[in-house]
């Protein structure tokens, strides 16, 4: 089965590991992600000012181009891209003013027909967790994993319509199927501080500390996410936290697709485990 795919800017640069393990894992499961022939940045944030239509044009163009391909779907894995594409699509479908204005910019006649879909949904709803279990080359054997969703995947619930806005479980269901032991902790949909890392690093440091301690206190050996910015904040900030506190114990922060790829037997180099600040290799490859 083929599904049109929008990688997004970060997946072609700092988050190649997310891109390659998403494509590789889904290919091993029989789903080929077909990259859109032309694409731009999605805009990264959904404009919350009602009169800011220009902030939606990039995403609208991506969606309109996806509608020209076969499949009726558009897959994207970065939480920011998924958030923006899904909300812009919702606006085009449900808001006649947005539909009219955006189509005027695009010189198109796109009505929001595309279904934006996340690889977590592809795994659960299209491939099926039982089918994934059958294709595993190895299991995670009780590895204690905390799933971190952050904010963009799940909220606001009405528009995102992606699992529960404060207690989603789709990532836990997948990771359990891979043999991991799920760590329940209260921080999984709190915000890591996001782009505030550029403006006020102390905010991000504080939020990351709360999330990490919340997960570590319950025994997490690794944290997984689908967002390159969450991954960066949670991963890099541990270097700062370790500088301030000698007793700080680091926890590797991975993309969920890296664990999926590992269990499906993707070649080690394509997992790109060496590109994180906290090295996950002793935990994953030593085990």
């Amino acid at each position: 089965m083929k599904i049109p795919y929008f990688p997004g800017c970060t997946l072609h640069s700092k988050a190649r590991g997310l891109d390659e393990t998403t494509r590789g894992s889904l290919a091993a499961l029989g789903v080929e992600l077909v990259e859109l022939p032309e694409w731009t940045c999605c805009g990264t944030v959904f404009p919350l000012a009602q009169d800011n239509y220009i902030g939606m044009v990039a995403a609208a163009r991506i969606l309109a181009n996806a509608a020209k391909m076969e499949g009726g779907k558009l897959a994207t894995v970065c939480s920011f891209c998924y958030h923006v594409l899904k909300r812009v699509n919702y606006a085009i479908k449900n808001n006649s003013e947005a539909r009219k204005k955006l189509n005027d910019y695009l010189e198109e006649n796109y009505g929001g027909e595309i279904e934006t879909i996340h690889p977590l949904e592809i795994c659960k709803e299209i491939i099926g967790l039982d089918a994934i279990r059958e294709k595993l080359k190895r299991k995670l054997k009780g590895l204690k994993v905390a799933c971190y969703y952050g904010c963009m995947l799940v909220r606001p619930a009405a528009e995102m319509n992606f699992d529960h806005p404060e207690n989603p479980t789709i990532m836990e269901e997948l990771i359990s199927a891979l043999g991991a032991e799920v760590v329940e902790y209260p921080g999984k949909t709190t915000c890591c501080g996001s782009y505030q890392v550029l403006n006020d690093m102390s905010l991000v440091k504080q939020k990351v500390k709360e999330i990490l301690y919340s997960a570590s206190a319950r025994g997490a050996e690794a944290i997984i996410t689908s967002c390159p910015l969450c991954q960066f904040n949670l991963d890099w900030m541990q270097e700062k936290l370790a500088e301030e506190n000698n007793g700080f114990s680091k926890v590797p922060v991975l993309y969920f697709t890296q664990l999926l790829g590992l269990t499906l037997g993707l070649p080690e180099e394509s997992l790109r485990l060496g590109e994180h600040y906290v090295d996950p290799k002793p935990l994953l490859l030593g085990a």
Partner: protein
Amino acid sequence: MIERIKEISGQNASICMQCGTCSASCTGRDLMDYPPRQVMRMIQLGNQNVLNLKSIWICSTCFICTARCPRGIDIARLMEALRVINLRKGREVLIAEKIPLEILTRVPQMALTSGFRKLSA
């Protein structure tokens, strides 16, 4: 000013009942000068100083306040309106030259695009 905020956000702050759920949930509350409940109160009272708060620039638009508001107010849209009114007058907080190099060279590209869209004019 109240009408302008309402127009840009599409939200009616006057239905806020001041319960404080937004403040209790807020990601950035510890670093804000006025937590979201007080920002809402200032909008209700038409206090122009609401445009000068540090809080509006600390908001990380995580939508936890929006998700939890028992009155169904999209508080994130109100915070955005306060930023947008400033940004359209050229008042911004994120200046490219002032971002520390150790961060600039390491952050994923999406952080730069989103940060500049939210915090730069």
